[in-house]
């Protein structure tokens, strides 16, 4: 009688050094210290600047610049807020402009990008164009934006779009569509073709199926790319600075930068404006946070 072949039993392998280390520390006090310690450092790193700005907006100029730093504000000065809007009443207009531009851009870019992405996913394209065209669209963002700043300024001047809100919106839609297309492509890929086909057999046109079936299912993706577009647009400074020059169209970042002048930097006012600028995006992200988490984890099926 032959002995059993040795391959039946799993071969014992000496654990490697990392494995030993991992086994030793896994679930122990020290591993928790490392994890929470690391996370705390990261939170401090990201949140401290925000804390400094918000508290800075409540300090006097002297309190803000004093050394050693005033870690906790001694007095709660809201006078800075009043000062900003009395000294620079056009800030109301900057906020309004920013909101108009951001909301319009986000809606238009998300919609256009989603439509384009669906077109690439749903239809047969010859010569692999369903890959090459989206890649071309993305490639428009490969170069440093400053490269096209001058040509765009000249073109915009010739067609009277300089220093107008529609001009800014047009520009920002162009910037955001590539990201939306790429994000939405991933989401649409996950939706089975049979759902659309089923909807068409059930009586929808293809367009109807897109609006009634595909878009609702891709909602997390729409929110994710929407907030992406929103953040980019709300914070954009370079082109706003180049093509706007008055309260007619200038946005909040332009207003913020105007507080830095050749002679002085108005830190306390920058803190105020920065705090104000931060709020809308925070609120929106908070409202759609559930969708957002699903969106960023790319899960269509919750």
């Amino acid at each position, binding site marked *: 009688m032959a002995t059993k072949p040795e391959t039946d039993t799993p071969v014992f392998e000496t654990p490697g050094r990392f494995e030993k280390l991992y086994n030793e520390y896994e679930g122990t006090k020290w591993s928790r210290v490392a994890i929470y310690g690391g996370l705390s450092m990261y939170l401090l790193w990201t949140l401290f600047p925000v804390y400094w700005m918000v508290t800075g907006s409540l300090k006097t100029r002297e309190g803000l610049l004093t050394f050693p730093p005033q870690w906790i504000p001694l007095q709660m000065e809201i006078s800075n807020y009043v000062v900003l809007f009395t000294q620079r009443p056009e800030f109301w207009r900057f906020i309004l402009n920013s909101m108009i531009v951001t909301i319009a851009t986000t809606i238009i870019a998300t919609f256009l990008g989603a439509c384009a992405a669906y077109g690439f996913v749903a239809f047969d394209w010859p010569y692999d164009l369903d890959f090459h065209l989206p890649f071309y669209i993305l490639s428009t963002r490969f170069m440093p934006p400053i490269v096209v700043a001058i040509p765009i300024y000249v073109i915009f001047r010739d067609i009277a779009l300089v220093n107008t809100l529609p001009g800014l919106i047009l520009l920002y839609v162009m910037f955001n569509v590539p990201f939306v297309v790429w994000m939405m492509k991933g989401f649409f890929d996950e939706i*089975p073709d*049979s*759902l659309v*086909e*089923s*909807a*068409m*057999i*059930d*009586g*929808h*046109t293809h367009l*109807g199926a897109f609006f009634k*079936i595909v878009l*609702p*299912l891709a909602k997390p993706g729409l929110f994710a790319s929407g907030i992406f577009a929103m953040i980019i647009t709300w914070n954009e400074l370079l082109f706003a600075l180049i093509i706007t020059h008055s309260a007619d169209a200038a946005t909040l970042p332009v207003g913020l930068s105007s507080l830095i002048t050749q002679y002085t930097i108005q830190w306390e006012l920058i803190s105020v404006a920065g705090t104000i600028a931060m709020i809308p995006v925070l609120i929106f992200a908070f409202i759609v946070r559930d969708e957002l988490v699903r969106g960023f984890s790319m899960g*269509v*099926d*919750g």
Partner: protein
Amino acid sequence: MVKVKYDSVEKRYGDTIAVEDAEVTVEDGEFAVLLGPSGCGKTTTLRCLAGLTKPTDGNIFVDGTDITDVHPKNRNIAMVFQNFALYPHMTVGENIGYPLKIAGVSKEERDRRVEETADILQISELIDRSVGELSGGQRQRVALGRAIVREPAVFLMDEPLANLDAKLKMGMRTRIKRLQRELDVTTLYVTHDQEEAMSLGDKLIVMDKGNVQQVGTGDEIYHQPVNRFVAGFIGSPAMNFLEVEKDGAVVRPSIDGAEFEFELDDDIASAYGTDGTFTLGIRPEHVAVRTTENPRCIPGTVEVTEPLGNEQHIDITFGDLSSEDLQFTVTASGSLSVERGDTVWLEFEQEHLHAFEQSSGERIATEEIVQSKPNVPDS
């Protein structure tokens, strides 16, 4: 009266031919099953009727009207998909009622019909659930419900049972058949499972490599396959084939090393016509297995036995050849006691022999050979 007719329908993708010259007619109220191995073009054929795939050539008629260029939504056709294709953002009731909603049916009417449909399918208690909470079998029933609620002219099903487990499959099969009979709707059903096809279809359409191979009832296809492909595809275990050489009434394998021969009955021998080589086919259940020597029988060696209770499948090789060409599977009674290595003697039931041309695979002498209808097959 809803009759479906494919008139030389063809679908090509570049140089690849998915469906070639399909000529199929499905009568009113008939349950037709498109059957074939994967990639044979059966789903493409179905999708052409649904309007999801546009044929490269040819026309499709429903009820006498050419619908080749009609948008799917205007075809009054319902379809059940393999993955059920339920809308995940809607409840069961909304899913079932969705075709009616698009058609603009009033809310009250819609609710009434959804309830009615849910009743038929015994899913009334699930109406307010989200489809994500349903089991496979329940999803299947919701998909069926969505298809029948609108009382379509034609019912299409693309492997609707493929995603279900074996036990559920049997139950759903009966349900689908009963439903089709009750509603009396012309139905086209795609499957690769021949047992499913045989048990469901009034008419089987066997396809291979984009071509319709044979159209007929399950019995016709099982007992009179028109070519070697159909003969080999239908039946489980599959039909045994043997390349043979005929000399008068004597037949011997045309394979080197095979050292047996057997004699055909006179009428069968004459039906095969002139002498020459051809492929002989016989189903496993049409071979009698004997454990005692018999001059009319061919000796073989048992390779493997697969007992299934009331019967068993026995793999037998002839002589000491291990060639695949000389391996037969036969079905014998479960009480027959044989073991690997035993010698057994096989007798072919001659009236159940099938003969196919070697080069084309076409059947030789179709009508004459099947004289009596044999015992009902096990499927």
